């Protein structure tokens, strides 16, 4: 349990929206034995991830909140991913920066959009059968069609609105005083599904939720109404591009069962399961692109 989460649980007043940061190293790999160490750094509006791959295998990653300074966030993320491994930037053959802050990754070889990186990362994470990727990010939401190699064929992004995004969910967690990690499960505990909140703007949805609380709705019911609205809005985006099987979800909201289960029910399609952290898909795609870039460069020589 992280410090933030513990403080919330113990009622010590931490901020409810602060989702759990994490890092991981593959105990079965030794990067010194590998030939190509590549990295991807996804500087998103809400979170930053760094993924290190050794010869195309996942070696280490970090997943943390983005600060106000994109280069600093990128540096912190890669340093945390390196922690305890002995790796330094000098050991990276190539790095791809992605996410909205992709051009601000100081040590990147190249910047590639998060749409391409999420498709490539989902291909690695879920396998080559994936044809539709839904990236539910902090600030926007993208529906992506890709081929068996994870190459983007078409994409659609959400309208200029925070509803249906991670930031919107964070606002609701704070409003209701429910830790963001618990929002999804809590929303599923209602006996009867309430109507979704009608506002698509997160600011207005927040006002609407305040009204519902004043009317006597309990937190679970309000969360169910918001998760349902978010799921419906995402389904609308997906249906505009069409859902081709197999279907996979990446990004932070993929960890929210309150949205994912409602979305699957409305679509009548079960998303593919994964044991990996769905938030690292973009950085993972970046690391794979970085490896390919390096190999291409070597081939030219």
């Amino acid at each position, binding site marked *: 349990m992280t410090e933030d989460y513990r403080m919330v649980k113990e009622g010590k007043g931490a901020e409810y929206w602060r989702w759990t940061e994490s890092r991981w190293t593959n105990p079965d790999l030794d990067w010194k034995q590998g030939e190509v160490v590549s990295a991807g750094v996804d500087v998103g509006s809400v979170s930053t991830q760094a993924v290190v791959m050794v010869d195309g295998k996942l070696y280490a990653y970090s997943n943390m909140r983005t600060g106000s300074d994109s280069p600093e966030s990128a540096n912190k993320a890669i340093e945390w991913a390196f922690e305890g491994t002995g790796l330094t930037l000098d050991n990276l053959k190539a790095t791809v920066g992605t996410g909205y802050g992709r051009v601000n990754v100081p040590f990147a070889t190249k910047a590639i*959009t998060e749409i391409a990186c999420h498709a490539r990362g989902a291909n690695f994470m879920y396998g080559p059968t994936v044809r539709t990727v839904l990236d539910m990010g902090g600030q*926007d939401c993208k529906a992506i069609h890709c081929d068996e190699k994870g190459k983007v064929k078409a994409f659609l992004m959400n309208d200029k609105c925070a509803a249906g995004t991670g930031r919107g969910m964070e606002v609701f967690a704070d409003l209701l005083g429910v830790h963001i990690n618990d929002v999804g499960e809590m929303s599923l505990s209602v006996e009867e599904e309430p109507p979704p909140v009608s506002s698509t703007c997160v600011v207005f949805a927040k006002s609407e939720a305040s009204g519902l609380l004043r009317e006597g709705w309990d937190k679970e019911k309000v969360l169910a109404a918001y998760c349902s609205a978010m799921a419906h809005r995402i389904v609308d985006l997906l249906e505009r591009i069409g859902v081709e099987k197999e279907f996979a979800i990446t990004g932070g909201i993929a960890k929210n069962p309150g949205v994912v289960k409602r979305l699957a029910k409305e679509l009548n399609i079960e998303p593919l399961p994964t044991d990996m952290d769905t938030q690292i898909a973009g950085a993972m795609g970046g690391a794979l692109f970085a490896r390919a870039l390096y190999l291409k460069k070597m081939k030219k020589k």
Partner: protein
Amino acid sequence: MAKYKTEPLRLWNKAKELRLKFYENYAKAHEKGGLRWAGGAWTLDAIPRGLGDDVWSITSEPYAASIAFNKKFSLRCLEATERAGYARDLCSYMRNYWGSIILDEYAFPEFSKKWPKPDFIFQDHICCSHSKWYQVVCDLEPGVPMFSVDVGCAPAMKADGETFKYVPMPQHAIDYVVGQCLDGIDFLVKVTGREYNDELLRKAIYNHMRSTALWAKVCELQKTIPAPLEEKTLYSLYVLGVLAKASQWCADFYEELLADVEDRVDRGIAAIAEERARLISDTQPPWGFLKVFRYLEEFGCISIGSLYTFGLVGQWELKEDGTWGAKTFPASVDDLPKDREGMLAEYIKFEINKPEWQHFYHPALKSAMMIKIARDWKLDGVMLHYNRGCEGLTIGIAENRLALQKAGFPVMTFEGNMGDEREFDEARTMARIDAFMETLSLNKIEV
């Protein structure tokens, strides 16, 4: 070394001068005893030309686009209309225009500090906002007489999936519009106290035919690889036809332009040196952010035009070989009827099948025309502007996206507003372009 040779358009400065002269003439018309009139860019503008050569129009939409390009003034205009109680989700051209009246400021202060009030309004109706636009203007400028022509009489096309064909305009539809034009001339005579000169009308109708067909010929040349012009330049050229297609100077300019562009094609002069992929866009662009077109060029991608630039001014027809080309027009003004009703009938028959009027009837017509352009102009993709500022031209655009995709063309959409910069998100639009370029396998060209 650059892939293609480029050079500036020879007539660039002349186009800019003509546009400014247009706004100067409108502002200063009264100084020389002339008349000013207001009306939209779709108005049958040959008709007021029968009042004399000293009658100048403001042409509302491009005037509002000029305001939109000046972000500071535009914001003041938009906020002025909002303070006056008009809703923010209305046509943004209309709101910029109203704002200029409310503030009593002209967008070209070098010619007039104050808004030059028109002597009369001569408008037509193809979209709902066109109808309401001048109703409100009449509230804002009491006493300015207005006449409107309803041109929504019948579609000139039928679409069958990816193809379309022209259908003859029913006689009753032509009679319906011509009848209103005849009434319109009576109105003009009454409110101006001037005599009406049918020979000037005849000449204007002929110039209209010349301008619109010549512009289509220029757009036809965009089929060339590399394209001789890019869309940002096309906007600066098509606007002259939008402003005054029935004028002698506009028709003459387009004749000169056609020769110039033909010369560029003959010499292999490209609009951009590294043309690697070709797109079209659609509907009015976000005028305050034309840099999106320059950004495309960083990837070697060119927008070679749009149904909007091709078809708002250009007049087209399907040729026997199946190509879509410039409409045939009479060899001389003497080939037009001499009687008023007869010449008006020829004018309406010529004008009413303009491409940009067709999708007001059904989006399938627009989809078929866009697919035709996509195939014949050898495109790699399409970039659609979900323009919150214009209901008329944005209606059906999501259906156009589906049709283009079904026909095999990659499509990118972006949201914005042609005349209200508050609804355009530059960073996100550029991010979408980055992703779209990646799907087209285009990297930024290293300088």
